């Protein structure tokens, strides 16, 4: 798994001038996240509130939270990759300090993070934050 950094992504996204390039980039990013094994795609790992199926698993090791996320829809996978870039491999405290709305604004993708959107990205972010919160104190 070789995801670019947050700054790289913001730079790359600013460079595109049409929706096709932007979403092709997001789709391609989605291909680079580490997938979840079929046997771990259990009902408990499903994130509720998403139109397409999304699974999220986490694991705390030596104070660092590691996430894996997967979806059967490729655009959601790309959005998950964007989310992983800012949340994965961090301490719970650092995760809770991330201003995700600001990040999506910088990417000009705010529309994906509004509560009304059926794609459930908000639900995934909330789940990640809840997990971080459960370890933070």
């Amino acid at each position, binding site marked *: 798994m070789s995801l670019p950094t947050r700054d790289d992504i913001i730079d790359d996204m600013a460079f595109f001038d049409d*929706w*096709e390039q932007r*979403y*092709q980039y997001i*789709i391609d990013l989605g291909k680079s996240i580490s997938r979840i094994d079929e046997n771990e795609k259990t009902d408990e790992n499903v994130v509720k509130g998403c*139109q*397409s*199926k999304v699974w999220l698993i986490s694991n705390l090791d030596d104070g660092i939270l590691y996430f894996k996320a997967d979806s*059967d*829809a*490729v*655009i*959601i996978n790309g959005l998950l990759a964007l989310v992983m870039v800012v949340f994965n491999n961090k301490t719970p405290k650092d995760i809770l300090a991330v201003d995700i709305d600001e990040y999506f604004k910088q990417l000009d993708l705010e529309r994906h993070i509004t509560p009304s959107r059926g*794609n459930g990205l908000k639900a995934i972010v909330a789940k990640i934050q809840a997990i971080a919160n459960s370890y933070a104190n």
Partner: protein
Amino acid sequence: MSMSSLNIAQLRAQFPILQQQVNAKPLIYFDNAATTQKPYAVINAITDFYTQCNANVHRGAHHLSNESTTRFEHARDTVACFMHAANRKEIIWTSGTTEGINIVAHGIAKQLRPGDEVLVTQMEHHANLVTWQQACAQSGASLKIAPIDDDGTLNIDAFVALLSTNTKLVAFPHISNALGTINPIKTLTAQAKKVGALVLIDGAQGIAHAKVDVVDIGCDFYVFSAHKLFGPTGIGVLWGKESVLKNWPVWQTGGEMIANVTYETATWGELPNRLEAGTPNIAGAIGLAAAVEWFSQLDLHALQHHEHALLKHATEQAHNFDGLTIVGNAPEKVAVLSFVLQGCHSADIGFLLDQQGIAIRSGDHCAQPLMRRLTLPGTARASFSIYNTIEEVDAFFIALKKVHQMLI
């Protein structure tokens, strides 16, 4: 304006929302099975009501209340006439199809006994399935499911085989929202009547695409939502035969539906009021009547011909599209193109079409058991209406080609 041959440009001009751009592209609205757009005739009727005569109905005898009551009850006449109801008392205002089915399911649950059966089909929308599951669970009756064939046609022989004197109620859709299948409602009703069952038809998708004559059909209940017939949301109709409705268990209780009330007891009013508790959706009923009047003056035959041409064109294009499989190939179907694209998730298809200004629906279409029956996680669905054009269908396939290239 009577249209024996349809002028689509003129028709489109009556829908203000269709003039807009989405994501800097002209809107192509292909989500008509979810809800239809509203013509000025409907928008103006609602505005007129609020600007000229808003008052509660059937209450204070003052000028506004009289005017409001007149328009509200006129709306009932308009709908009764449209559905060919024998009697205006048979038109019960609801909040939509879902509430209409719930009123009937709630009533039948009180009458069902263990050993009794309710029969529905494999193609139900959740509204016409979960309601009966609940009625059966409460009463100890069992729910039977009539199967469909792989092309999305109801298997009539299997349907008939499931009928018996235990069958107390049969419910099926006039037209399937997910597949577009038009069911032979008269035949199904006649078969159900042979065993003495009550018949409810879910007309959510039927009302805007076919002539509905409830007497001719012979059913006991026909329910629909105004919003799928160019009318407002939040209003719908439960039509029921007077002989059945007049003793139907009351649904909600409260004001308007009573005759006499003491601190201890209450008696119920007459139809239609006994099934309409509380202040009704007055503006909604008036908006629905405006939609019915507007729709009725169009030439239904020409509309059906146009929709059929859209479906035929779309189906031909779909057959030539690599990797595309149409879901729902019943010989009798309305202008709904439900499909899967090999290797593509329907949510991705919907999203990338939206980027190009095209609105479709993706997912399970509120019919999870049907999707399981078809062994599909969901489909993408383009559903056409009278104001759509062949050019829009062509634009849709060009956009879909782009989506396919991006996703594969």
